[in-house]
């Protein structure tokens, strides 16, 4: 008989283990929370034995605290504030040292305390805590989620360079258009090479190059030692380079000289592109005199991977 609902004897034991009695959490409320957790953890109703294993592995004390706080138990709320508010604030400061995330932490706080819905019922964010992690880890993750979503929503309001792009300039110098074509090609083949890597390698590269996490931070995220992260990054880079060289040789039928030119084009160009990344605007490449040109080049560059055309043009 598979179900998400634990048996009565299991409930008694779990209730005791969670020490939900110290917050006087009604058993029915606790059972409902267990059931929510089980549904989150198991896609299909598990066997009773498996269900019990899953439920026993939960952070039961935290789950009981969340239940009690959601139902407005004052002692539980105080306990939560004392133990977890510092965690939340410290996390906010780590995310944004200028204090921008504090306000998110405060609004999170309000949601945890409960929002009164239209039917007069109080809904608390705590109901989304399922005990699969500790309460403080969950708080940090929810805060990070809010932060990222806010950052992304504000960024969406700013016009992207792609939206204001103009048709490719025909007036460019032949040499320069060749460099641009090489860069487009290089981006395409590197993207393809990255896509062939295992998820963990892509994640490591993304953390390092896009998110700019430190090796130690990446190690924490992936459960690896710093030195292992570094070694694995170097290995992935070697694989990508070999893959890129292979693609240029075999798919693009390039000569060693042309392949050299491809790599050189990137080195010559990337300096300016990196600056434009940092400033959030396009800046002048060293060999072109005007900003719109650079912007066009950048946006062409961005879209190059969608284009079938190669660099042999």
């Amino acid at each position, binding site marked *: 008989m598979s179900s998400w609902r634990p048996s009565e004897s299991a409930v008694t034991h779990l209730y005791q283990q969670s020490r939900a009695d110290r917050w006087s959490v009604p058993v029915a409320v606790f059972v409902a929370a267990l059931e929510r957790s089980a549904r989150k953890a198991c896609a299909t109703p598990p066997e009773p034995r498996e269900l019990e294993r899953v439920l026993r592995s939960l952070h039961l004390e935290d789950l009981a605290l969340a239940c009690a706080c959601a139902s407005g138990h004052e*002692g539980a709320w105080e306990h939560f504030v004392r133990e977890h508010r510092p965690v939340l*604030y410290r996390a906010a400061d780590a995310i944004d040292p200028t204090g921008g995330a504090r306000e998110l932490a405060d609004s999170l706080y309000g949601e945890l305390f409960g929002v009164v819905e239209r039917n007069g019922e109080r809904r608390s964010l705590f109901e989304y*805590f399922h005990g699969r992690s500790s309460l403080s880890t969950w708080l940090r993750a929810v805060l990070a989620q809010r932060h990222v979503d806010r950052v992304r929503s504000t960024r969406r309001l700013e016009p992207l360079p792609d939206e204001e792009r103009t048709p490719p300039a025909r007036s460019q110098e032949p040499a320069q258009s060749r460099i641009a074509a090489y860069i487009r090609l290089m981006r395409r083949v590197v993207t393809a090479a990255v896509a062939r890597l295992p998820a963990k390698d892509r994640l490591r590269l*993304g953390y390092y190059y896009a998110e700019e996490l430190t090796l130690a931070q990446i190690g924490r995220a992936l459960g690896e030692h710093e030195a292992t992260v570094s070694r694995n990054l170097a290995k992935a880079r070697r694989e990508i380079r070999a893959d890129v060289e292979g693609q240029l040789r075999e798919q693009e039928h390039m000569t060693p000289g042309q392949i050299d030119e491809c790599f050189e084009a990137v080195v010559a160009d990337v300096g300016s592109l990196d600056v434009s990344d940092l400033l959030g605007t396009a800046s002048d490449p060293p060999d072109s005199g005007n900003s719109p040109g650079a912007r066009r080049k950048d946006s062409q560059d961005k879209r190059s991977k969608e284009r079938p055309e190669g660099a042999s043009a």
Partner: protein
Amino acid sequence: MPERDRDQSVEQLLRRVMSDDITPLEEACVDGETIAAWSEGSLRAAEASAVERHVAGCSRCRALMASFVRTTPPQPVAESLWRRWHLAWAVPLATAATAAAIWVILPDTGTAPLTNAEPIGTIARDERALTSPPPPAAQSSPVAAAPSESAAAIQSQQRAKVAESSSNELRQRADTSGNRSLADQVQAPAIARSPAEASPAAPAPPEASFALPAPAAAGAAAERAEADTKKEVATNSAPAPLAAARQAFAPIQIVAPGGTTRWRIVSGQRVERSTNAGADWTLVNVASTGALTAAAAPSATVCWIVGAGGAVYVTTDGARFTRVPFQEIVNLTSVSATDGITATVTSVDGRSWRTTDQGKTWLGVN
């Protein structure tokens, strides 16, 4: 083209390619709860690898993970939550502990101004200690300043905190009536006497830890650690005997500048005052209906007390408390004050208000 330059090209390309905004359309993004579970390794293998695949291919979720990782305190992941939590506190606390330790061994002339300055600065400092990420460098300077004292202080603090947490739990277990159970309120002398025997559930701290060098400093530091944790305004007492190490388990006690006048809140209800440095206590009547949570004593005769439901009381003669009007019905958890008319209170949801006219007007601080 030299080999090194090719590697450089690959790196530069990766920097741009990896930053491309990608969102897999066919998949739902990962929520915070799942990220938290994933980071603790509590997902099943199949689900964990699905999450990993998604995060690797979704800019938004990868950024979410990156933000999350930045909030992770740099401690070994293998440690249990409680331990990790305590260790994360250790560094800022160590700073406070050393401050206390140094203060204790200063000659008498040095102590007076420090004591006077305490009530004003305490809350601000507490906030900093609570919220700032533990600066790795902070540890070295206090240790260098007073090696033996601070080492002992840190150790005893950690032990005191472990014991404190479990005695909290004991007390909370006893508190089945659903009443407020603030750590410092329900106080059995047995717990104060020996954390180890009173709370068998605790990873029993060996008594030897309290016999380390400079026990007085360690005791004062433990007291300070407690005060910091509770965010209560508490000035430190005069150089304390070994027994002071256990005072960490005493009721909320507020020491007015000078050290002879002290206030304490017992069981969250009763307010008592001592005019002889804690030797004798007399009951002071506060017409409170709810629980009292924190107090601040900026001078020997002035004391502010806050509590549940927006309760604020003040005395300016050290004997009679009057209710100070407060605009909101919100549980207040801390108070700092500079005199009988100027105080700042903080609520359970982190908001602060300041009055400069004994509560006739309150202005939001943040």
